[in-house]
């Protein structure tokens, strides 16, 4: 903190904000290792990197949530100390959080009031919320409780809260990860407008197409260090990804030639009431997944994905046995273990707490889903050695990186735990595999590994159902794609005969997608 790093010669005018020689240690681990970053007014600056590259740490340092171990932050050339978020806000730094930092049971206005000056009265605040709403098209009802709002509306609160402080720098952490393509489009308009007003934006995203479209400069982090800077408009998504991971991301190879086999997973008008106040009812879902193919279910979170997964895995029983058919046999009334005995495997969305018990070791977690199908118990007693062997097999086959021979599941990074969970199911050679959000929050290399494993499994004759919000992923691996919206499933269409645009419209609830033209299957989605 005390010694001032030698300042690199600035190129051009003094940057609005600069971070020089930033080091942040957590124990022995260096999350940031000598990072230099300059942000200029009127630019959208991308911060790229895989999970664990140090993006969030750097962002938290800029927002005053963490103090750097070494290095300085400057504002218009002067060294500043960002001891807490209040100090950062006072300097004009605003933040839009990925997992919104909103209190669900407070109203919109109350959530905004939390960071506004004490002197601002309730009525004035509402007037200013309305003002920002009209200026930027961010309309909000200040008296609604947050729990009743959609992800897009919640993000509007975050952005409004940020703009009310008239920030000169706005940090956005994965802002489009929960938005529909249409909502993302609205967001981009707002961001471009903020840039034109002369504000600086630091944009963190995994979605390279967005970065190439919005950002004029990019800083790339890997392993806590800056490994490159570029103009993303001059790069391809592929070259950006290569810079992020430091290696060429292998393109997944679809299984070739295998004609779809017999139907293995069939839904016959699956109908389920909503499981709770926040749940979504399923309305007469009909779908056939044949051996050898991957079918993708697209949709925005909260449109029945969790309920569909539960109905397939047996966590929720169907009202009639015939609504879910596995390999020709009715399975709708079978429990989870019985379905696994029929040769099905399941990977839920939540890694910690649903897919794995975070405090248990990997071998114990192997027992959780394989106890009945891998001979891990005898006379009701567990066979610890066999479980350890199984866990080691998965770890070796799926290149799971971890500390220690058999660590607790919760200590693994998201990508490595996901590889373990997918591997645990795939090594059982399931005839039917259902995966919900297989690469959510997983870095590019691990995601490519998982997708390839799914393709290979289908290539060996299994029926694979992938539920995902990530359209790029679905178009990469799925043979056919159906859209789940508000508990209703559209017809599964071959991926080659549809486009991101029309799938995006269906995800947003449009009933009549425009006819897909053959040329728009690549590139970012334009919903309007």
């Amino acid at each position: 903190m005390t010694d001032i790093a030698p300042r690199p010669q600035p190129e051009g005018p003094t940057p609005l904000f600069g971070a020089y020689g930033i080091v942040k240690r957590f124990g022995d681990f260096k999350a940031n290792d000598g990072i230099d970053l300059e942000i200029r007014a009127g630019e959208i600056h991308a911060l790229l990197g895989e999970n664990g590259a140090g993006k969030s740490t750097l962002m938290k340092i800029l927002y005053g949530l963490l103090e750097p171990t070494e290095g300085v932050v400057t504002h218009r050339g002067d060294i500043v100390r960002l001891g807490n978020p209040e100090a950062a806000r006072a300097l004009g730094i605003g933040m839009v959080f990925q997992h919104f930092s909103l209190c669900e049971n407070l109203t919109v206005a109350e959530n905004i009031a939390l960071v506004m000056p004490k002197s601002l009265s309730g009525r004035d605040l509402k007037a200013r919320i309305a003002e920002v709403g009209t200026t930027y098209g961010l309309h909000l009802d200040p008296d609604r409780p947050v729990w009743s709002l959609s992800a897009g509306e919640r993000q509007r609160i975050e952005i409004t809260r940020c703009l009310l402080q008239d920030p000169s720098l706005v940090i956005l952490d994965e802002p489009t990860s929960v938005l529909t393509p249409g909502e993302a489009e609205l967001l981009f308009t707002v961001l471009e407008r903020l840039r034109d007003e002369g504000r600086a934006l630091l944009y963190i995203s995994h979605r390279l197409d967005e970065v190439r479209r919005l950002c004029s400069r990019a800083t790339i982090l890997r392993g806590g260090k800056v490994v490159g800077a570029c103009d993303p408009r001059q790069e391809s998504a592929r070259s950006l990804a290569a810079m992020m991971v430091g290696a060429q991301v292998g393109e997944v190879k679809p299984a070739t030639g295998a004609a779809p086999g017999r139907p293995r997973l069939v839904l016959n008008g699956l109908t389920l009431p909503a499981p709770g106040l926040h749940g979504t009812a399923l309305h007469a879902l009909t779908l056939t997944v044949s051996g050898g193919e991957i079918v993708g279910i697209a949709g925005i979170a909260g449109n029945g994905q969790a309920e569909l997964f539960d109905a397939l895995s047996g966590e929720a029983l169907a009202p009639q046995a015939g609504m879910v058919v596995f390999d020709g046999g009715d399975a709708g009334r079978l429990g989870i273990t019985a379905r696994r005995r029929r040769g099905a495997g399941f990977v839920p969305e939540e890694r910690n707490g649903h897919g794995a018990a975070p405090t248990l070791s990997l071998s114990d977690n192997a027992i959780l889903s394989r106890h009945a199908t891998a001979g891990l118990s005898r006379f009701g007693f567990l066979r610890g050695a066999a479980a350890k062997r199984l866990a080691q097999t998965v770890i070796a086959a799926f290149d799971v990186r971890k500390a220690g021979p058999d660590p607790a599941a919760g200590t693994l990074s998201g990508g490595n735990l996901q590889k373990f969970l997918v591997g645990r199911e795939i090594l059982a050679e399931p005839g039917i595999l259902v995966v919900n959000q297989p690469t959510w929050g997983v870095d590019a290399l691990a995601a490519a590994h998982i997708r390839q494993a799914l393709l290979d499994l289908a290539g060996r004759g299994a029926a694979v159902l992938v539920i995902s919000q990530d359209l790029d992923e679905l178009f990469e691996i799925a043979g056919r794609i159906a859209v789940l919206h508000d508990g209703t499933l559209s017809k599964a269409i071959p991926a080659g005969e549809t486009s991101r645009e029309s799938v995006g419209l269906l995800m947003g609830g449009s009933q009549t997608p425009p006819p897909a033209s053959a040329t728009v299957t690549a590139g970012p989605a334009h919903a309007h």
Partner: protein
Amino acid sequence: MSLDVMEMVLVTIIAAATPLMIAALGELVAERAGVLNLGVEGMMVLGAATGFAVAVETGSTLTGAIAGAGAGVALAALFGILTVVLSANQVASGLAMTILGLGLSGLVGASYVGLKRDPAPHLDVPGLTGLPGIGRLVFGQDGFVYFGLFLVAAVWWFLWRTRAGLVLRAIGDDHTATHALGLKVRKVRFLAVLFGGACAGLAGAYLSLAYTPFWAPAMTAGRGWIALALVVFASWRPLRVLAGALLFGGATVLQLHAQAAGIGLPGQALSALPYLATILALVLLSLGKRQGGSLAPAALGRVFTPHR
């Protein structure tokens, strides 16, 4: 029933309701900040013993009441260090505080068992307190009652009309989000716990200084637990605490009268009424028409460990 008998019954109901109300208001603030303090009973009983002992030594009821609140704060500070600073389990720590408080109070009060004091003085407004029917009810209570009513209004105003109250409610709803905004989660929670302890200690002091002006071991007799139930019954709203305290206090008094009148219902069944009422309230609340969100502070009972 004559007007004066009615007034007598109401006065006893208010007397029974006051300690419940004061202790519940303190616990309500702590729970609104996200901390579940199951040590209310222990803080109350320690406040009763300390309050009585100090009042006997100094001869001042007010000093005794302040000392009682201070004893509650001291025990609450220990609870706060365990749960807020060291992130210990709130349920286990709270139960430990209750057991510790019962033990400590026996120690503090050992040499005061059997002593008697005059009860806390009641208000006496010439011309008004003597009014038939309502005089004693409105103008003849002791200071604790008036302070308790003031506290209801003050807590309501704090929670719903001040920014500090908004911050406290926000922290009780989501400590991760509020921490990310730079709000001082641990500081606010610690202060809320201290306030809860002060209220519990004061409620205990009311028992030994005004309600039954002597000290007997374990004299709180489960009122701390009733206060905890009362917070839930009131769905974490101060004004409903007032109504609930009168209802719960009424059940206690009713039980005594029913026994005196020889009504066949066993007293134990009537003693259970507050808890049955709480269960009923919980059922009614969840059957309510709300489509989402939660009535309880969403972060209630969850420990917060900042990543720093």
